[in-house]
């Protein structure tokens, strides 16, 4: 079944935790570390070309930085997610319509699911 959505890592502590010591949070939402970890696992398995992913991420960031004139938070992990989706759909590892249909399913789940 789908993974739990309530693993709020930003609350974890310990010396190697997402750096809170300087008042910084690495992640601002629970989905972000999951996407990060997913990316690294795919890379380990040889399913993701790191350099291509990085170029995709650079492209996403470059596309979104012009939007930063207003007060929005910098959407780094949003860029990361989009770069990962693009790479996986481009490599036919997942299909775009498959993702869209699963997103509908996920969105329809009760909030505490």
């Amino acid at each position, binding site marked *: 079944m*789908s*993974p739990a*959505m309530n*693993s709020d*890592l930003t609350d974890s502590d*310990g*010396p*190697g*935790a*997402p*750096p809170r*010591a*300087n008042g*910084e*949070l*690495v*992640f*601002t*939402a*629970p*989905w972000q*570390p*999951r996407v*990060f*970890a*997913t990316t*690294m*696992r*795919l*890379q380990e*398995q040889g*399913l993701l070309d*790191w350099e291509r992913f990085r170029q995709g*991420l*650079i492209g996403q*960031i470059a596309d979104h*930085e012009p939007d*930063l004139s207003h007060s*929005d938070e*910098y*959407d*780094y*992990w*949003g860029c990361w*997610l989009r770069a990962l*989706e*693009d790479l*996986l*759909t481009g490599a036919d590892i*997942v299909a*775009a*319509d*498959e*993702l*869209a249909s*699963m*997103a509908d*399913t*996920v*969105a329809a789940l009760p909030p505490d699911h």
Partner: protein
Amino acid sequence: MSNDQTEAHPPGHHLHGPELVEAQAVRAQALETVLVDKGILTPAEVDEYIETWNRRIGPLEGAKVVARAWVDDGFRARLADDATAALAEVGVEPGRLERLEVVMNEPGVHNVVCCTLCSCYPWTVLGLPPSWYKSPEYRSRIVREPRAVLSEMGLELEAETTINVWDSSSEVRYVVIPERPAGTENLNEDELRGLVTRDSMIGVARVEAPDQP
């Protein structure tokens, strides 16, 4: 660009704040679930990876390297020569994605690390990057006006100190070996390790000696 993204961001409707985070959370979970359904990964693997980054890997790995470099001149020389090989001596996995290089601070020379293009970062020794490291402001300004940015971050450098800014890339990641603070001559390697901060290894802070009792 895939279809689902068009649906997640219909024309004329720009998502903001919680609405955007919710839409992204849904897409992220959808992606993970599809990969799980295909047998490509398991939620447990994802959990384990996160746990590893949080608990085991992190600034502590880098601190081991710094503390050893402070107490062992031979190690320091080997580190400068071939950081990747030297890391094994202190039990640090260099990672396979890129080459790691160390840059040594010394009197009159200060080093600071950034990534102007995205957020390349020496993950394997410093853990996950802080949010400011990824900010467009840090990435652009640290190159143009490092002294001013460092000052704003609380690090005042003398006017005659040379500042080297190292721009990371997919091939090379940099870690700063900060200067050993004065007054730590009596501390052993373990104790020194405890003084080393993440920020000092990015080059935006000094390592401070512990307060004297």
